[in-house]
């Protein structure tokens, strides 16, 4: 930017071809030429040049920025499987098993595709009576529908809940910086109705 300003200055452009002195004068020394033809004329434009540079630098690095970290908390869930081990299906019939907490009450399994409005655990252990799951750094706020989700087939929407969190009316409240602990039970043979009755 500075260079552009120098370049537009007629005195500076004179310097390009005007190092030699005018005819009829004795040759000036190089420092004199430098001072006369470059430093003195161009010093006049230094303040605006500096100002322009300052404006330029101030205008840099604007625009889109990463948002602040959303407030988070920790959720700990104690899961108990009813009538262990009789109710567990064969391993090959468990395509996936997750603890899922939704920010909304789903109306059908396609709502599970709203991935940005739910959180889920790593795969749960199979063939156990109890398990404790910890979800670290999840968004603080309300999760009105949460439970253990069983994928029972190969198709994308072969999911069903086998147990829901019922404490607190089924609504989990995760507070910022705090750990929320809830308990729930799950039963492969007696899953809760889905979609939830209030939606049906």
């Amino acid at each position, binding site marked *: *930017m500075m260079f552009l300003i120098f*370049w537009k200055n007629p005195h500076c452009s004179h310097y390009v071809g005007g190092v030699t002195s005018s005819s009829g004068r004795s040759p000036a020394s190089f420092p004199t030429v430098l001072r006369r033809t470059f430093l003195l004329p161009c010093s006049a434009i230094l303040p605006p040049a500096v100002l322009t540079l300052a404006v330029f630098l101030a205008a840099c690095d604007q*625009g889109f*920025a990463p948002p602040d970290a959303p407030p988070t908390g920790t959720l700990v869930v104690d899961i108990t499987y009813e009538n262990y081990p009789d109710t567990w299906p064969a391993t090959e019939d468990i395509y996936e098993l997750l603890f899922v907490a939704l920010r909304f009450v789903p109306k059908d399994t396609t709502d599970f595709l709203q991935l940005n409005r739910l959180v889920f655990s790593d795969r749960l252990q199979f063939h156990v009576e109890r398990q404790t799951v910890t979800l670290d750094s999840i968004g603080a706020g309300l999760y009105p529908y949460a439970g253990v989700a069983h994928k029972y087939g190969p198709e994308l929407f072969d999911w069903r809940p086998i147990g829901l969190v019922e404490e607190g009316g089924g609504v989990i409240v995760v507070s910022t910086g705090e750990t929320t602990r809830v308990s729930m039970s799950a039963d492969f043979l007696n899953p809760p109705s889905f979609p939830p009755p209030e939606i049906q």
Partner: protein
Amino acid sequence: MNVLKTWWRFAACLCVLRVLAGTNVAGAQDGAVAGRVTSTTGDPMPGANIVLLDTTYGDAASADGTYRIGTVPVGSYRIQASSVGFEAKIRQIDVVANETVHIDFVLEPIAVESREIVVTTTRRDVDAGNTAASISVLTADDLAVRNILALDDALRYVPGVQLTGNEVNIRGASGFSYNTGSRVLLLVDGMPMLSPDAERIPFDLIPVHQIERVEVFKGPGSALYGGGALGGIIHVITKTYPAKPETFVEAYGGAYQPARHAIWRRQWKGAKNPRPLGGVAINHARPLSPNTGLWTNLTYRYDASHLNMNSSRSLQGFSKFTWRTSPDSHVNILAGVNRKTSNTFIYWNGARDALNPGSINIGGPSGSSGTSDNRTQHVSLLPAYTNALSTSTLLQAKVRLFGIFIQPLDDEKKPKPLSKGTIGFRYGGEVQLDYEGAPGRYIIAGVSGDANLTNSSFIGDDAPRSQPEVAAFTQWEEEIGEVKITGGLRFDMYRVRQGETLSKISPRTSATIGMGPSWTVRLAYGEGFRAPSVLERFIESSDYLPIVSNPDLKPETSRSYEIGIRGRPSFGGAPLFTIDAALFLSQYRELVEPKFAPKERSFRFTNFTRARIRGGELELRARILRGRTSLHTGYTYLDAEDLETEESLAFRSTHLFKAGVALTVGPLESGVDLRLASAPEKVDSDFARFVRDAELSSPVQVVDVRIGSYWRGVRVTLHIRNALNYHYLSRPALLGSPRHALLQISTRI
């Protein structure tokens, strides 16, 4: 299909017959014309055009300004020398047998840009200042001074054009359609060249150094060029060979600035260091004989990208062979291959981790990643034959073949078999006859046939899909005093599936009215359509998201009205600038986009809405200080509404502003370009179901700066792109390029 075959045979026979007939004409006693073109300062003017008017003879001045037109039949001619920014000069000459007429030209710079010639608006060369459509032109100089690397880079500087990701959006026509089904048609020397699989624009098809100019036609152009031209046309016109052998070598290199935000650097170590990009291009052009010549290009490019897993390297070879078969006829053959190996960054891992690709795990057979590794190869072959059958009749016959081969890469970066990817061919041709019935009356008529054949792992069954189509078109131009009226009609018919065809008639009419020597008013009405691509209709995949086919997709249609005025007002007797203002209204029906269909529990491409886009555009260009300074500026206002939801259409910016200044002082050349776009009022909510923070959008405020010098045949230019390091989203979940510097060195031998 019988109709298609019949036309093919007719076109092929006609082509062969005319070539044979044309070659017999040559052989009379000839002379030559040679000389030099310089500016008033004595500098040579490489690239200046020298033509014998009313013939097909011509040449472009070489690096030292010299030109030579060989094998000119004996006779009297008017010879014209012209160059952008300089006043054209015409002289009368007599060519004598076996002698060379020497004639030099000294061109004077003019205050305003010289009149541009465009071909897109009427399928024949016309003065851009008197055409009844909004059209912007990028010249070879515009591309060279900005170190444009690919066609999509160039389009960013055109008023009214917005790139959403890598999709071209002319006056809001396109939005973002997930890289399928471009609503803007790409023409290369008049031939449609969208990819056969998804109707995408192959931006890497033509090397930038081989482009003579790019014309951007704003508005539906289906009456001229058929399907695909729903929202506009990008027309690439390639260069022809010079009179003397010429080699042009260019190398550039630079780097993206490290990521500014600490949280992004923490997520990806690569963002802590500059990310390199660079390339080299070698062009050689020469006459091979008095009647033949060749242009050839080899380009290698590497781009590490500012995003993780988004690097690419490409090797491109392209040639154009020209054979002047007679004084009135010539054959051009363009052929090219392009291989590109790339990671493609599809979506981020959220705004706090914007430099890394995200992933989606929805419990399908495999989780999907926000990046895709592919090797893509293009082959293209475009023969064209032109013959002036008489002083009033011109015949053009063109053929095209475009093949695309996409192979996914495995974990070791080796390409998987083509059966795991996509293979597609688009082939076709057209014959066009231009007839000048009387002064000011032009009639154009022609037929075209086109087919594509695509086999892709994204298509449900193993059978290749084909979508052939045939068309007939005609256009009538009539000048009545200061009024020029144009009417055009095109009939397209394409096969949807075996035994079922769809047809579409696309009319177009326009008028220009001269208002004195400086102003022209124009009125235009046109209709456009786009047949859904093979992928949009037949895709079946669960690799990334569950998506199912929809063979019943209907064509998208559009109609557009425009009123505009273009002028070159004079001040003190000399025109100072050109100004173009337009108001437009476009209506769209049956727009196709991928939507989640709860019933199918999958995405599918669906005809989903009616839309209306209205707005205005103001463009100004000037060349001042005796051609040493040029400036252009353009503002576009868009009001884009979904008529069914009465909400804004997604991915459209309401305000677009482009401006650029170029200044030349002695050996120094510099320029600044500014691009502003307001944030889209709406983005697609379905995408945001899966991709974190995909509902975010941002304005664009990008400044590009360049400074360089031309000395002893070597041009060195420093480019600072996005000089203010403004962070923006080029589309949802994709961060635009940060500041990056490029040093470009080129020489012409």
